[in-house]
């Protein structure tokens, strides 16, 4: 070992020992140990953390409420009854077989990350505590999961929303890591189909955040969906160039609404709050406009204005992986979850509009066709160009 190398090594080693000690924001798991085998499942949130009403909350729901049957109260866990858990399941998951129910012995360990530097120490801490499965929510944890998985070959890992990527950006696999990504284009297709049917004037809008391949999947799916149910419709498209600027989202959405869009779908992170606000304002001014949310059910932001949301089922991906592990079926590798796997869907439609039942029936019919494989949903501009409804 050369001197420089050894210095690096010792610094890294010291950091590993010290950082978890001082930076933990651990939440106590249930102190009493249930009888039988205990399966510790750890989860490291990204900087959004608990309460983000989106990605992280969804992952936590899959682990704490569904798999462990526990509810987090702010100070600790309380046990829930199966009926309580059942009440949180959307209809399609409640009917799922095998049913979603508490898995015996699962004990959640949750570490929240305050900054990106927390990811790796948090993952390591969970490994040191003997977690059988360690879950990282969000593509931002990709590097940290990779490093932790290599260092702890005996622990199993689940990475949500990204495959493992090497230095050149090429996906690769590790024997102890499962990754789940979502076929956003399929969910976007369904909300696009709904937008096409709901739109009065045949003009709908799409607001993206940064123009990156991930967001392009939403756009391509959405446009294909609109084209399927309303071939003559125009999709006005705009990108805000950011994911953190609500004012930009609102400005862009107002522009689209001023140009006649009456259903606006956003895939723009925080900018999307501005999009929903723009729709809310337009409704207050007497226009019949709807917004479509993304990632989680955003209906609570503006119950009258949000038609539905394109939902990524992070909770389900977490739950199914825990179940696989508990049953000894854990397999490493990459998975892409679409409509068929229940990885994406649209949130329950809570508002009323003309022909509601017929619209929903048509959308459900399209869902069946995608699951059967008779519709292949495009995920890129190139695929979209050759897409024939």
């Amino acid at each position: 070992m050369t001197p420089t190398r050894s210095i690096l090594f010792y610094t890294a080693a010291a950091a590993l020992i010290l950082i978890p000690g001082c930076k933990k924001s651990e939440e106590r798991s249930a102190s009493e140990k249930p009888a039988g085998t205990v399966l510790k499942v750890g989860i490291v949130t990204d900087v959004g953390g608990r309460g983000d009403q989106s990605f992280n909350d969804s992952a936590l729901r899959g682990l704490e409420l569904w798999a462990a049957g526990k509810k987090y109260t702010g100070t600790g866990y309380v046990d829930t009854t199966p009926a309580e858990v059942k009440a949180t399941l959307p209809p399609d998951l409640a009917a799922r077989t095998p049913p979603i129910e508490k898995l015996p012995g699962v004990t959640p360990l949750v570490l929240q990350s305050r900054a990106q530097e927390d990811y790796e120490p948090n993952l390591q801490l969970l490994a040191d505590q003997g977690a059988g499965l360690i879950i990282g929510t969000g593509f931002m944890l990709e590097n940290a999961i990779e490093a932790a998985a290599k260092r702890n070959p005996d622990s199993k890992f689940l990475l949500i929303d990204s495959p493992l990527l090497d230095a050149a950006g090429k996906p690769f696999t590790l024997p102890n890591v499962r990754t789940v990504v979502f076929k956003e284009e399929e969910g976007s297709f369904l909300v696009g189909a709904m937008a096409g049917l709901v739109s009065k004037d045949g003009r709908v809008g799409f607001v993206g955040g940064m123009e990156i391949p991930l967001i392009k999947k939403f756009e391509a799916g959405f446009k294909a969906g609109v084209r399927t149910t309303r071939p003559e419709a125009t999709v006005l498209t705009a990108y805000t160039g950011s994911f953190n600027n609500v004012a930009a989202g609102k400005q862009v959405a107002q522009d689209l609404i001023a140009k006649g869009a009456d259903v606006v779908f956003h895939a723009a992170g925080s900018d999307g709050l501005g999009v929903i606000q723009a729709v809310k304002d337009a409704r207050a001014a007497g226009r019949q406009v709807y917004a479509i949310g993304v990632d989680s059910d955003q209906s609570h932001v503006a119950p009258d204005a949000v038609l539905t949301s394109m939902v990524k089922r992070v909770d389900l991906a977490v739950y199914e992986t825990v179940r696989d592990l508990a049953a000894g079926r854990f397999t490493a590798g990459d998975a892409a979850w679409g409509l068929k796997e229940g990885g994406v869907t649209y949130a329950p439609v809570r508002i009323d509009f003309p022909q509601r039942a017929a619209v929903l029936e048509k959308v459900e019919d399209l869902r069946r066709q995608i699951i059967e494989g008779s519709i292949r949903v495009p995920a890129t501009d190139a695929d979209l160009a050759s897409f024939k409804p």
Partner: protein
Amino acid sequence: MLELLEALVWSTLEFAPALIFAALGAVLSERSGTVNVGVEGMMRVGAFAAAAFALVMPTPLAVLLGMAAGALFAAIHAVLCISWRSDQVISGMALNLVALAGITFLLESMFGPSTSPSIAQLGRSGFGPLAQVPLLRALSGHTALTWLAAVLALAFHLVLGRTPVGLRIRAVGEKPSAAATVGVDVIRLRYLCVIGSGALAGLGGAALSTATLDRFEHNMPAGLGFMAVAAMVFGRWSPLGAFGAAAFFAFGRAVQIGLESSFPSVSDVVPKGVLLALPYFLTLVVLTLQGKKSRAPAALGTPWEPEAR
């Protein structure tokens, strides 16, 4: 065509105020001789305070308290820079960091990590019959803040250029020792200007959380404060200049957005990043053309020390 123009004007009037208030705040502080790069942080404090107070009181009152919170936060800057004579840029940047972390902490402990609960927005005024006339329609449907921004800029211009107090502010920014010899209390005036600057920045932040959105969102103000400082420099440290520059930024953004959605083929020819950078690129061009004519207040960044004449 007329409709396109109308949409541009409407969008500019809607989104410029937050930037204008903050830019005017920056001008007020810097004309009195104190560098203020902490505008971003002061906006954040104002935005959060307005949204939090609006939960328990009428929104216009909460906006005033948002201003007060911005002013209070700026008072720290005043103490550091004027009384303790610390480096003004470092103090401003430190305040930005404190606001980023501190407000995040407050938000999480009070409401959760992403947003505050929704509040009643500031009212929007329709202009009755005016709302039917093409083009003039663009003036209708804004909050009072839009008009306040214009009035404030003009009033600030008049006060700074035409009144004794304006002369004193300019004097302590250009040559504080000269002002002190004729009996101007340099320290006190600078304090007032920095605190006033915080109030204006706080108002800009409150505009985001009470007019643009109906809640505080954890990323606010997402760099707007730095754009305000740029607008101040672009506007050559004058109130009307900063007003014009801020309005120009907002207009440039509206043009870019309008272009993209109305003429999607533009983005096939011009990369999207170029379009996004267009207003700022134009700013650079204008600043380059202005050359040496753009001049900051002479005593800007120099703490006032009565003993060192």
